[in-house]
């Protein structure tokens, strides 16, 4: 090797070692220089954009797939919630029906009459008349004129019967007339419906009859249509008639006709059995 070339080699090696030593020394504690900063800035910018691009793409891709799954899962859960909600409502309905039926059984045992349970299936199509339709008819032994009651009290009378269904004329109908007595004073009158009102009136009560608000009105048992002593309602108002001879009594019925679901048809009351 010529001497000049030997010098170049040794000088270059020494320079390289020096540069590397300086480089190692400068970066020994994680410090960066201006060139490093420029390089990092340039590469970092590119990396950043690329990262966002790839990450964004991945995110979109992942989220799209994820959302599809989420939507699917959401639909499934919504269906499940709806199903459970329906079941809860159905169970609540069963619970309520159980309660009513239990009450009905106790009622049947309490009332000394042969009763036929029925469901209310429709109300009157006309607002001028107050009737209901039940799901029992002639094939169940229902006849025109039979009394209809509920655990809450007196409902009305059978007006019309077909083979499977019957129409009931309720207490609230102005064409309905039911014989009743005041439980406290034993004053007797006829209870009839009023025009488009949810209250009845009690007719033919003498001005000397002892009547007070909140007095309980019960069935008299006359005519053998209803069992005696069945709750009809309470007196809600008493006024003296225009002629001064009779008292005008309004009665709030114990039964809410518009909320009725189950009723009982009085097939035979103890009074009718006694008569027969």
């Amino acid at each position, binding site marked *: 090797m010529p001497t000049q070339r030997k010098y170049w080699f040794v000088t270059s090696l020494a320079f390289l070692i020096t540069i590397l030593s300086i480089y190692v020394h400068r970066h020994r504690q994680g410090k960066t220089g201006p060139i490093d900063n420029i390089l990092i800035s340039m590469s970092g910018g590119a990396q950043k954009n690329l990262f966002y691009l790839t990450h964004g793409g991945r995110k979109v891709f992942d989220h799209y797939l994820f959302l599809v799954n989420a939507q699917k899962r959401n639909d499934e859960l919504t269906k499940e919630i709806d199903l459970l909600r329906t079941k809860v409502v159905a169970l609540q309905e069963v619970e309520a029906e159980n309660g009513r039926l239990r009450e009905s059984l106790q009622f049947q045992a309490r009332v000394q009459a042969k009763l036929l349970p029925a469901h209310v*299936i429709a109300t009157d*199509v*006309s*607002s*001028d*008349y107050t*009737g209901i339709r039940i799901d029992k008819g002639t094939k169940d032994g229902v006849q025109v004129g039979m009394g209809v009651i509920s655990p809450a009290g007196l409902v009305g009378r059978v007006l019309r019967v077909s083979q499977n269904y019957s129409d*009931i004329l309720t207490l609230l109908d102005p064409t309905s007339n039911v014989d009743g007595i005041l439980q406290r004073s034993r004053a007797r009158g006829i209870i009839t419906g009023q025009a*488009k009102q949810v209250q009845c009136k009690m007719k033919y009560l003498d001005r000397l009859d002892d009547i007070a608000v909140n007095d309980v009105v019960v069935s008299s048992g006359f005519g053998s249509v209803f069992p005696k002593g069945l709750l009809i309602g309470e007196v809600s108002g008493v006024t003296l008639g225009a002629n001064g001879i009779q008292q005008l009594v309004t009665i709030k019925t114990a039964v809410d006709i518009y909320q009725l679901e189950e009723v009982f048809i009085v097939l035979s009351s103890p009074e009718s059995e006694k008569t027969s």
Partner: protein
Amino acid sequence: MFFLHPSQKRLLNSLNPIFFVLFVAIVLMVRSTAASVLPGMFLTADLLMPFMVFFAQRRSTWEGFILALFCSHLYSLSSSAPIGVFAFYYLAQFFLARLMRYGIYASGWISTLLVLFTLSLGGRFLLPIIAGFFGPAWPVFIFSNFPWGGIFFAPIYGLVIFALGEALDRATFKADRVNIEMYEAAA
């Protein structure tokens, strides 16, 4: 639908009255079973009256009469009123609407509304008279027996019934009798 064979068109045409009876039955069924959720105006409105006006103004006398009789009887059966009260009441409305046709033909919405409102209000006077012939006279002429919400709602509801009735007529290729009569008269 518009490319049916003439025999199919005739079949649809002949089924038109049955569709109307079914339409009335649906209205009555909704009224009697969904009373707890329906608004008060709908409950007190005269539900069958618009049908009577429709039959009176869009049908021949006999066809309209038979339809009116059938539908009013259906109504009568769904009510606790003595059977016949509503049958006669609605037949009377049918004939009144038929008479009114010579003065006001329910063609546009204003004339239809006028006829419907007249009968909606007039019905409250007519019903007590007819009910009087059937035992205990109920309803009676008292102020509380005028459900104003229902009286004003019935004509509006009637417009919908008219629109649906006309649509049903078009769907079943039912020719407008009045136009035929006018055409025949002109000829």
